[in-house]
């Protein structure tokens, strides 16, 4: 094992698995502390809403420090984020659904979700995507609307005043 020292080791530690975990903990601590600062602490007999958050934020700091120790010792454990393109596409498909549902109705929103999500895999024909859309929209309609009677308008409600 080659000894890495100084700034390079610090950067390596902070960008290692544990190092990024520690950063996550400190971010969580900061968020909780900032909210808790506006809340009453109270007394033991009448504990305020800020009591628990302060305890939790302190714990986050403690875990952050422990993870920093781990990071310093094992700076070589890197993260593997995986392919980011498909990840963005999958998340984007849900965003598209959420934006479309109220203005275009369930059927179009689901179709858009499926179409966008399908882009994450290469080499699909239009026919394949169209078939997927038809099958999935039909299944959702049968299960959630016909069978379960959920309040899910499949048709576009654009005409409503």
């Amino acid at each position, binding site marked *: 094992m080659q000894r890495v020292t100084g700034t390079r080791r610090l950067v390596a530690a902070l960008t290692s698995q544990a190092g990024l975990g520690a950063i996550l903990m400190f971010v969580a601590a900061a968020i909780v502390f900032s909210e808790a600062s506006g809340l009453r602490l109270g007394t033991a007999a009448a504990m305020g809403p800020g009591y628990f958050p302060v305890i939790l934020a302190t714990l986050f700091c403690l875990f952050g420090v422990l993870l920093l120790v781990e990071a310093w010792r094992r700076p070589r454990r890197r993260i593997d984020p995986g392919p980011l393109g498909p990840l963005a596409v999958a998340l984007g498909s849900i965003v598209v659904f959420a934006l479309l549902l109220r203005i275009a109705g369930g059927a179009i929103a689901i179709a858009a979700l499926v179409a966008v999500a399908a882009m994450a895999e290469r080499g699909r024909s239009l026919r394949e995507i169209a078939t997927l859309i038809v099958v999935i929209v039909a299944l959702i309609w049968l299960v959630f609307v*016909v069978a379960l*009677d959920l309040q899910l308008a*499949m*048709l576009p409600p654009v005409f409503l005043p």
Partner: protein
Amino acid sequence: MNIKKTVLIAFGLAASVTGAQAQDWPSRPITMIVPYNPGGTTDILARLAAEAIAQAVGQPVIVENKPGAGGVVGASLAAQAPNDGYTIFFGNNATNVVQPLINPAVQYDPAADFDGIATTADAASFIGVNADLGIETLDEFIAWLGANRAMYGTAGVGSMGQFTAELFLMETGTEATHIPYPGSNDAIAAVMSGEIAFMMDPVVAQQAGSGRINVIAALTPERHPNVPDVPTATELGHDVVISGWFGVFAPDGTDPALIAAMSAPLQELVASDSYRAQVLSMGLLPNYRDPAAVDAVVEQDLETFGRIRDAAAISIN
């Protein structure tokens, strides 16, 4: 049944394009916003009311559940809805009195943003005391409160149970510590186990005769038919009458003729035997108020509950 619904909506839309006038109201289905989950007390009452209105006006009344934040989510939506008679709201005194008083996040004004259509039922509250304390009558209870550090449970800060108990304590000049629970059922379990001494809530009536809780008084104007042996506080010389209610509202500025057209079938509904039987079995009291009376009860409760809120410093923020 949902295909039918969809088709009906489509027809309704076509009609609305040609211009909806009060005289051809209702030309399409009416939406009733219910600010709680399906299956609860408010939802069951709302569906009964929706059916009655639908039969009278000849168009479906579609119930839409919009739960969240103690009913505030649904009420906010309803307050902003167009006042064309096609969106109505099934609320109660939590959404239309209590929440606006205690929750600064509430954006609507219960008196100005809603027009009352009708109430369909009142909630009846009872005083329930842990049976091991050996308290049988209201006078014993008040004496005991004066001599002990008592704790009472509720379904949370700003719940009807807290307002009820605080009013009682104010009127009788006694004191007790408020212990909030997540719901009425958690609180009543705590009264049964003796963790707390008492609570004032509709669920108490179900424990009459259970041997774990003594139901010592009703806080209603008259005795409840389900528990005819339980006297009212008024009978016993303590004028504490407080009750919640459930009713239908329209967004402010809805044509009074449309409001009257929806109120009339609810009056008939509340008078019907089958409705009375069902509402009584749910522990409530059937009670119709006409549009003017609904607006009056909102105003009056805003005053009463506001007074209790200020005296007991009840707020959520």
